[in-house]
Structures are given as C-alpha cells and as structure tokens.
C-alpha cells in the first residue's frame, strides 16, 4: 500500500479521535461523541488501517470508561488492570511481529501517532476535574508514551519505555490508592470542584500523593526523571518527533500536581476536618511505593534495564 494516503488517513483518524473524545467527555452529548469516534474506528477497519481502527476504538472506549466503568463505585480494580498497560505491550508485540522492512517503514508513523495520542490523553486529563477521570487520562497518556518507546528502533528508547512503565505503574497505583482511601472517607465530596483542603486532616496521604505526582511529572529525585531522560534520548535517535515528549511531560506534570493541589490544599470543610489520616495498612503500602520511586530516582541503574 502507498504509505502517503495511509499516513494521511492515520492523521485524519487521530485528529478525529483527539477532537471527538474530549468533546464527548466534556459535554452532555455522550452518545453522539461515542458514535462519532466509533465511526472513526469502523472507517479505520474498512480502510485496512489497523492503527486507525485501534485509535478509534480507544477513542470510543474512553467516554464509555468515564461514564460507566469509572463511575463512583469499584473503580480501583479497573485502575489496577489498566495501569499494567497491557494494551501498549500488546500493540508493541504486534508491531514487533511485522516483517522487518514493514516495521522500519511504519516505525516513525507509529511513534508520531503514539506521541499524538499521549498528548491527546494529557489534554483529556487536563479538561477533567474529578480525580478518577484525571487518573484515567494520565494512565492513557503514559500508556501511549510506553508504546512510543517500545516500538523505537534502539535500546535506549526501549529501556526508557520500560522505566516509564515501572514509574507509571507504581505512581498511578499510589495516587489511585490515595484517591480510593479518600473516597471511602469523604464519599461524593471528593468530586466537588475547587480546593478540598484535605491536607489538614490527612497530611501523610497528601505527601504520598505529592511524591507520586512528582514521579508522574518526571521531576528529579523520583524515578520519573531518569525514565523520561532515557525515553527522550532514545526517541531522538530515531528522529525529531521525540521533541514532543517534553511538552507531554510538562502537561502530565501540571495535571498530576493540580489534582493533588485541588485535593489537599485550601480550607477544609466541617465534614472532612475530622477524618483519619493514613491508617497503618495504607501507610506501609504507600511507603513501599514511595521508597521504590525515590530509590529509582537516586540510584536508577539499580532498577533500570
């Protein structure tokens, strides 16, 4: 197949998903938005564009997850399932099984589309105010970054992707645990817009969430920094598309830290003032994650491949 129309089709489908998914999420037109991205998926399948179909399906899945599966109940198991990034691994495995010439031709496009998807997911997370939706956007963004690295042509990109994988899995799980713990304490008040001021009652949970947000934002002293550094250098060896990575990382950092700030800063309401801080079981579990992220940030060679 001629690569030019294929690349154009990819671009159109990606743009459609980028524009349709956030609109579907932000407005009340759930059905229309889902139908629109679903149509993109069908168009991708009919045109033989596997990547377009996958992106379209992902676009259709996001509104579904946000409305149904990421509802107020029982969302932690789903976070843990998605946070293993199995789809990124599956896509990378499929890509690796292609003939070497086809792989070499498709690689820049796959990396570019993955980076676009990462940026789109970060924008999606930026548009959200509810913690669980923010987390879903962050998971999707990190997953796309992992895919970009795993399909890279050099060992640096693959090592970077594996490091991002470890960091994101631990950091997002920590944030999800903190949010689930807070949801159990304050109930629907967690989704209230504005600053909730929960640090007054739960300073330890605030610190755990903050360190995890630093790791997701690729800040130094956490494992996120060497992971992003490796991924950036690896992607740049394949081309300048990797220059999008600092922008995506900046957006992810802002989104993660803004979520933490909204949860923990500000004036506490009467109903949240007396809630308990991290219980011993939560505390030691989260401490293990925190030590992993800090140890990986200080001595990354001990943990990275």
């Amino acid at each position: 197949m001629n690569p030019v129309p294929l690349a154009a089709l990819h671009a159109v489908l990606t743009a459609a998903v980028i524009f349709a998914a956030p609109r579907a999420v932000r407005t009340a037109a759930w059905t229309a938005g889902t139908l629109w991205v679903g149509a993109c998926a069908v168009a991708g399948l009919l045109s033989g564009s596997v990547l377009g179909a996958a992106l379209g399906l992902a676009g259709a899945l996001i509104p579904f997850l946000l409305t149904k599966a990421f509802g107020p109940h029982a969302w932690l198991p789903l976070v843990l399932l998605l946070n293993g990034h199995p789809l990124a691994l599956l896509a990378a495995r499929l890509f690796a099984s292609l003939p070497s010439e086809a792989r070499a031709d498709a690689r820049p496009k796959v990396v570019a589309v993955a980076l676009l998807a990462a940026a789109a997911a970060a924008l999606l997370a930026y548009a959200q105010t509810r913690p669980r939706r923010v987390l879903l956007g962050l998971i999707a963004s990190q997953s796309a970054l992992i895919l970009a690295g795993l399909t890279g042509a050099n060992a640096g990109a693959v090592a970077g992707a594996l490091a991002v994988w470890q960091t994101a899995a631990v950091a997002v799980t920590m944030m999800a645990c903190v949010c689930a713990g807070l949801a159990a304490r304050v109930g629907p008040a967690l989704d209230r817009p504005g600053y909730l001021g929960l640090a007054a009652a739960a300073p330890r949970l605030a610190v755990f969430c903050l360190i995890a947000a630093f790791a997701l934002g690729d800040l130094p002293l956490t494992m996120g920094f060497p992971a992003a550094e490796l991924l950036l250098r690896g992607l740049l060896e394949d081309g300048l598309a990797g220059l999008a990575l600092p922008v995506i990382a900046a957006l992810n950092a802002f989104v993660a830290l803004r979520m933490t700030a909204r949860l923990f800063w500000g004036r506490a309401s009467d109903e949240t003032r007396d809630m308990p801080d991290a219980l011993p079981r939560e505390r030691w579990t989260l401490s293990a994650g925190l030590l992993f992220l800090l140890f990986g940030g200080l001595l990354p060679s001990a943990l990275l491949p």
Partner: protein
Amino acid sequence: MSDAYLLAAPVLFPGGLCAILGGAWLLDARPTEKTLGRASVACWVLAAAAVAALVARAAGGAVPVAAYGDWLAAGGQDFPLGLRADTLSLVMMTLTAALVGIVVVFSRRYMHRDPGFHRFFFLLNLFGAGAMLLFSADSYDLIAVGWELVCTASFLLVAYYQTREAPARGALYMLAVYRLCDVGFFTGIALLHHFHGTLSAGAATAVALCFLLTAMGKSAQFPFSGWLPRAMEGPTPSSAIFYGALSVHAGAYLLLRSRPILDASPWAWAAIVAVGAVTAAQGALVGRTCPDAKTSLAYATMTQLGLIFVEIGLGFDQLALWHIAGHAVLRTGQFLQAPSLLHDHHQRHSAAGGHLSAAGAPFGALLPRAARDWLYGFALDLRGRGLS
C-alpha cells in the same frame, strides 16, 4: 581534601539533612525546632567552609573539577555526574552559601512555633541543595536536575500557607509558567544531544532560543512575569531567598553559562536585549502601582532582572555577574526587612525631620501631568489584566 569531596560537600550537607528529615517523617519521628534549626545552621556553615576552600583553590589558578562516574547507564545511554567550580560557579555558590545561611538563621526565629516549621526547613534545605547543584553542575543534564529541584521547592513554598486558596492558586500559576518554559530547557538539551555538540548556526540559534525561553520563565521576564507577584504569598524568608536572591537569577546564570552557544547566534543576542528592555520598563511602571511592600519589591526585582538580561545580551558578562551578586544581596536584605518596613520608615522619617521624599519622585516630575496619569493607568491596566 580532594576537589571531589569539596565540590560534593555543599550539595550533600543540605541534601543529607533533607534525607534524614524524610526518613524521620516515615518513621514518625520529629526533631525539636531547636535541633532542626541547629542542624540546618551547621549544614550551611560546613557548606560555606567547603565553598571557601574551593575559592582558595581557584585563587591558586586551577579550576576545581570532579567526575563521579555515571549516575545512569542503560540502553546505550549514559548520564555522567560531574561538578566544577569556575569563576561563574564560585560567585553563585558563594552567594548561595552566604544568603541561604543568613536566611536559615533568620528563619529560626521568624518561623518559631509555626505549624509548618519542619516543612519550611525541609524545603529550604532542599532548595539550597538544588541551587548548589545547579550552580556547580558540569553538564546541562545535571543543571536540569538542580533546576527542577529549585522549581519544586519554589512551588511548595509558595503554597506554604496551604489552607488559603490564594497561595494555592499562585503556586499552580507559577508551576504552569515554569513547566511551560522548562519545555525549552529540555528541548534545548535534547537538541544538543541530537547534534552531538557540533552545532550549525541554525541549530545554535534554535538551542539559544530554547534556553532563552527557559531563562525568561525562571527570571520572570515579559510575558512570563505574572508569577512573580503571585509568588509573594509564601513566607517572607523564602521570598527573600527565592525571588530576591537566587532562584530568579538562575535564568541569567543559564544564559551566562551558555555564552558559547549565544555567541554563535546573533538573533539570540537581539532577543535577549529586547526581552530584558521590555521587562525592565514593565517592572518600573507597574511597580509604582503596588500598594504593598513585598509586591513592590517583586516588581523592583523584575526591573533589575531586565537590566541584567540587557547586559548579558550586549555581552557585558562581568558586569552582569557583579550586578547579580549586588542585586541578590541588596534584595535579600530588603525582603527580610519588609515585615518591619513601615516601622523603619517612620523611624527614618522622624530622624530626617519629616523631609523624606518618595523614591524616584524628582524623575517623575519631569513628565507632564497628563503623561504621568496615562502611564499610571496603563500600568494599573497591565496589572489588572494579570499580564504582569
């Protein structure tokens, strides 16, 4: 003692204290205010002694340099750790040791019995370690580590009074500007790696403009200056050390450190001069509309930073370095004095027999009344729109 130990000491002493405080927090232990204050003072005395020893070595003619091997080696990529203390580094390290030490001593009393005393000292020491690393780093990668540590500590200290919404909003605004501008830093570093250090004129211009974007964010240059007045929500000692002395000058330091790249790009020179001149004018105008001491000082800082950028753009590196040093010391003193400013002013007013005139008033009188009114309205409008 070898150069390697002397160069590492100013980073490791405050960094080690942060690690001890973090470990104590995990184990639910809490040192007393007196213990923490004394430990912090001891750290900075030792850091200052190490810097003094480095200055003595450098006075002998040799630039102290140390390599500590690879911090990270994976997937064919490496990240060498190296520190150096050339003239530029030594001036900034000396300033850091002296000013952070002074602020630590000042804060022991100023923050006494504050509920966040431990958090404040943890972040102050984290900032000190980051600043020392930033100013002594031998590579851009390592500068980025120090840079981000300074950014992180700034963000958390602006939001120090976290039960109020204004500091939280100010910290998030500052974070957004920092992250946006840091994109330039990481892009510039990535380009340097991509071109393996051999830059064409076009590539040098691209890297220089990336670094300029970064410096503009950190040094509150137009149009990224809006975070500086908002950052005054933090405690006064942290405002003094961050936004009067060290953090805001990090952008100018980055440009001075990147002189070989700037020299290859005349466009970058012009851009630096233009940005600096606009910021200086903006700071001077808008500063006159501020009703409170700390915000006025923030705009005065902005004006001086603009002038420093102009000096760097015109190639007066030595002048810029002296300007940074003098400005940092003066502004730290002014910020630390800000809480008792009215009291001091009244004392001076009385001592002068009631004849103190407003600063800059004779120059303002040179303009016609209508022009003065228009300029005042324009500056108020700029501030009201959040552009500065």
